[in-house]
């Protein structure tokens, strides 16, 4: 805890060198993300020349003589653009959710899976596939049950008007396990030839069915949730000092914590709703960000958003273009995330979270 205080006070008295380093990070980071997004437009199983991609995009602003086929235009505009948007927004959202949770729980192993929201949303979506077979209802139910999960956690964790951190984590783990059991029950009931493949595919996570409606579905709650978390950045800093210190500093600990939790639930549920459960992003990315910009949430939260966006975009590019068969996202994020996480933990043992 001492380490935090030292670093927090250190960063609040901004040294010119530090702010210079930060602005360099923002410039390079944003430029890299823009490059990656452009590059992603030219990646895919259908070989489309870069000039055609540029032409297809410019065609929307000024009328051009098309030198490309209708199929190519549709691939770029109806598959690649929404997919890139979806990956960046979901990546940013998951990373912000993870960073804020790790802050308020003062625990480097926390991500949105741990408070049961992902499992709740997964159950809602699976139930919708089982019962309705309508993508709009799937999204709506995933969303609704993500919020139900956080409501259950809040009820279960409250004791005597207070909700200690440990109780929230325990209630979250239990709620998550409960909803995962319900998901297993659904995969057991589901028609093995018809619905089961759909449910399993959806649970593994994929942006393959991306369209503009899904972009909107994930963008609105994510921007809302991330906005709330960004507004709470000072309070997350204080919460990361621990409940007693935060209360001593005059913060309404309960209220602040629940505002952040609901915002996280909003982000997570919307991501699960459109792309299934995508693990590891919310866990790994905040660590990378913390290594680069330090533990001050005023900077850490936007930095996590930027890195998360780039990370998930890169992973989705691999998923959709490496082989003829689409690789499930959850598989890639775990295969890349787990070794990366181990490496990060070993590197940052002496710094960042080392003292916590």
């Amino acid at each position, binding site marked *: 805890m001492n380490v935090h205080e030292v670093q927090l006070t250190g960063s609040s008295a901004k040294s010119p060198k530090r702010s210079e380093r930060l602005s360099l990070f923002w410039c390079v980071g944003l430029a890299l993300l823009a490059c990656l997004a452009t590059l992603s437009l030219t990646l895919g*199983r*259908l070989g489309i020349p870069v000039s055609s991609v540029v032409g297809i995009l410019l065609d929307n602003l000024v009328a051009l003589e098309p030198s490309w086929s209708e199929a190519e235009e549709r691939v770029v505009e109806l598959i690649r653009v929404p997919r890139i948007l979806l990956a960046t927004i979901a990546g940013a959202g998951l990373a912000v959710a993870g960073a804020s949770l790790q802050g308020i729980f003062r625990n480097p192993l926390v991500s949105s899976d741990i408070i049961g929201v992902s499992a709740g949303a997964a159950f809602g979506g699976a139930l919708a596939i089982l019962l309705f077979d309508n993508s709009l209802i799937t999204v709506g139910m995933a969303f609704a049950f993500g919020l139900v999960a956080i409501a259950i956690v809040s009820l279960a964790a409250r004791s005597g008007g207070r909700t200690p951190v440990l109780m929230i984590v325990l209630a979250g783990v239990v709620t998550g396990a409960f909803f995962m059991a319900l998901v297993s029950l659904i995969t057991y009931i589901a028609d*093995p030839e018809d619905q089961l493949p*759909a449910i399993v595919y959806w649970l593994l996570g994929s942006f393959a069915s991306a369209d503009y409606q899904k972009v909107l579905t994930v963008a609105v709650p994510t921007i809302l949730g991330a906005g709330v978390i960004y507004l709470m950045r000072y309070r997350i800093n204080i919460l990361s000092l621990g409940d007693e210190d935060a209360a001593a500093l005059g913060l309404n600990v309960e209220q602040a914590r629940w505002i952040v939790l609901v915002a996280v639930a909003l982000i997570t549920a919307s991501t699960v709703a459109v792309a299934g459960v995508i693990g590891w992003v919310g866990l790994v990315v905040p660590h990378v960000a913390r290594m680069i910009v330090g533990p001050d949430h005023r900077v850490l939260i936007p930095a996590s958003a930027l890195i998360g966006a780039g990370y998930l975009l890169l992973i989705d590019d691999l998923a959709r273009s490496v082989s003829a*068969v689409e690789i499930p996202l959850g598989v890639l994020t775990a295969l890349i995330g787990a070794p990366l996480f181990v490496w990060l933990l070993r590197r940052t043992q002496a710094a960042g979270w080392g003292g916590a």
Partner: protein
Amino acid sequence: MDRSDQQKPIPRSKAWLLRVAIVLGLLVIGLAIFTRHRQPPASAEPSARNVTIQDQAGRTVTMPAPPRRIVAIPMPAASMLIAVDGDSRRLVGMHAQAKEAMNEGLLAQIFPSVSRIATDVVGSGFMPNVEELLETRPDLVFQWGERGDDIVAPLVKLGLPVAVLRYGSEADVEAWLAIMGQATGNEGRVKQMLRWRRSAQTEVADAVRQTPGRRPRTLYFLRYLSGLQVAGSNTYNDFYIGMAGGGNAAAAISGYKTVNAEQVLAWDPEVILLNNFETELDPEDVYNHPLLSTTTAARERRIYKIPLGGYRWDPPSQESPLMWQWLAMVLHPGQVSFPLRARVAEAYRLLYNYEPSSAEIDDILRTSVNRRAANYGVFSR
């Protein structure tokens, strides 16, 4: 135990005796159960009416008499057994999806009693529900042989005669028929069915060989509505696409895999075949797809829902020869032509001893859902 007993504590020596008695009692019961189950199943005793078959795992299955009650867990095996027998009376249990195909197709009309056959004998992943299965008192159970021992072992443990079938090639399908024929004493009928399969194969291959030009790129969707799942090489679909003179657009991948729409555009299939597992699936779904509607197949209106007769025609079945002829005509319009409607009627007389009406043949060939497809008029009367 009366009230005075409860109030008075049992003397220490008595309590000790009681415990020993309970342990001994449990031991005796346990031993009795154990030895009972160690006894070999009675069915192994030799008898003059013994029926012996060899399944596709190479195991010998012996039954004391020709089986009268058979459970078929692999989906195509249920309707195939009905065809081998020319009757549904031996079938007492099957997969829910097999029954769905019978209800959707013609089999439930030809043999109305199939609607009463149990389907709860098998759960997800072809795992048998042993208690439900025992309820049907089967003399023989067919199970898949290449999906691991977990789905076979519970049946063997119960001492039920189990014959496993292997999914894959046409040679495997011929072996299924041979096994079913032996088990039910229908070797003669099976010989006829096998002769039909081989002659149809030769006939289709000969007709295709005489067509000039390229083999149209053909893509089969095992799933369309929930993820685009296609059949690559090493599938039965790949086998018949090749035999009927098409080139499998997805030959580069192996087995059934999910791909994205962009990959389908990269393959640009000239003919698209839609599965029968997704009941709701209609060629209009592809014609209205923002991306797949730009494929050559969609532009030339060569998207076909595969027919469904006594069973789905896309997986292997007793009616496969009809599928091969249908597909050769679809892939080579105007060049390959069989009197398919007459062939269907002929096959149904052989397989089910049934004379299909003209409207029923329309239903089998799905002339209504395929009415907007190119050249589909040749299949109408």
